[in-house]
């Protein structure tokens, strides 16, 4: 089942690299403009670490590659938070990434992110995308692709909903009304993550 996780992460990496200018622009408008570069730099590292992974590695090992990169080599706010998410997804995936594993990993990842970052839904952070995705995954059919699709749709509308919000957490909280009308880049990236598996 190596193929599943590898394809997912490579698709996610490609999506982030393609979206880097947009993510930069969103973080420029709502924060400090480093989110695009931070995620792109991380995913380039993930790509090259995946290259040197032995063929036949289990899904959990594959996702653990991303977890290690994000936790140990990527800073910013987004680096460790995505790292926590990947860490839980890797643990849940084990030998094979199933829709159940995705649901469990995402839920545990969300919990870890909230423990560390203390954001609630409505604070205009990636939690606004991840939390509805976790809800959508709960009790999802046993088909990984449709689980990803359901999570992606939920995350994307969660991300869209952040545009209307005046932020209370994250860097957008500093810029007041300037961030209203602009989506949170971290939430958008969470949408890309699930969409990459769909």
């Amino acid at each position: 089942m190596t193929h599943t996780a590898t394809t997912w992460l490579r698709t996610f990496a490609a999506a982030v690299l393609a979206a880097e200018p947009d993510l930069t622009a969103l973080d420029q408008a709502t924060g400090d403009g480093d989110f695009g570069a931070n995620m792109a730099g991380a995913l380039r590292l993930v790509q090259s670490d995946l290259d040197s992974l032995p063929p036949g590695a289990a899904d959990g090992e594959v996702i653990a590659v991303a977890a290690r990169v994000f936790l140990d080599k990527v800073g910013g706010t987004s680096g460790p938070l995505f790292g926590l998410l990947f860490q839980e997804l890797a643990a849940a995936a084990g030998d094979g990434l199933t829709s159940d594993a995705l649901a469990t990993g995402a839920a545990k990842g969300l919990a870890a992110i909230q423990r560390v970052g203390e954001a609630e839904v409505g604070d205009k952070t990636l939690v606004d995308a991840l939390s509805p995705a976790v809800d959508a995954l709960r009790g999802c059919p046993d088909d990984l692709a449709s689980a990803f699709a359901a999570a992606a749709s939920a995350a994307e509308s969660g991300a869209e909903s952040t545009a209307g919000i005046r932020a209370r957490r994250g860097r957008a909280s500093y810029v007041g009304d300037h961030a209203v009308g602009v989506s949170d880049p971290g939430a958008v990236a969470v949408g890309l993550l699930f969409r990459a598996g769909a």
Partner: protein
Amino acid sequence: MSPYFAASPDSLVDDGLAGFALAHADLVHLIPDPGYVTAAAPSPGRVVALVSGGGAGHEPLHAGFVGAGMLDAACPGRIFASPHNRQIYEASRAVAGSGGVLHVVKNYTGDKINFGIAAERLQHDGIRCARVLVDDDLATDSADIAVGRRGTGATVVVEKLLGAAADQGLDLDALVALGERVAAGSRSLAVATAAHTSPATGSPAFALPAGQLEYGVGIHGERSGSTRPLTDPASLVADMADSLVIALGLIPGDRVITVVNGLGGTTPLELYGVHHHLAAALADHGVTAQRHLVDSVVTALDMRGFSLTLTRTDDDLTALWDAPARTAAWKA
């Protein structure tokens, strides 16, 4: 290609650090992987090591304040991005004293998380670790901002005073108490007339019409909540000083250390002019500016603006300010 003299945003940091270490080889050592700077000749009397760090783009902060009398190590992240926890963890391990490590952390979610993970790892290794949070920015003192005030210009003051105290052999608890007192007694406000140039796009991070002032900016080039017409600097500085004096509850006879800090693209003439106006404004309040620093020490790349910091002082703190320090950028 951006107007920065750098092949890429990453090499802006990497080449800058390499050149910094080369230029100040007598003061610092650079460990390029995972990326931190240590003091070549740390203070001998310390039992607790001081480590700080944060996104790059604020130079000379923090690496410029590594050396005897100030920091034992600094961890620079990418531009405006917190260092990752392994930088902080390994830097802290490298310099930790018998009494542990104190982290001086500017209050940003990313910095708190990454320093927090590093602290967990250090404690796991049996290394005592504590944190002083710097949160001086008055512009983000608002019920609407759940994350609290940002850490900005006061960071240099905290690093200087804690450094001198660490030199006296203070232990971790005593340093935390001192750092918290200094941070609590510090407030800053920053304004800008032009955004920094984004290294990612090569363009200004935001557009500000001529004659307009962004009041209450941070050091990551974010805009503030409030844009207002640019007034003459004497009244602008007086307004800013009023807010700081009120926020700190200063009364006639109180003493402060002042920092007039350039955000990057501001000229020395302007900064000294601001210092001149600030002295007048404080005198109007009956507040004594006992020590001062006028320099670009906590920058936001090439942003055109300045910040004012006031830190309450007393004989003890002033003595710590006056203690010798030997780092690349300490000039007061």
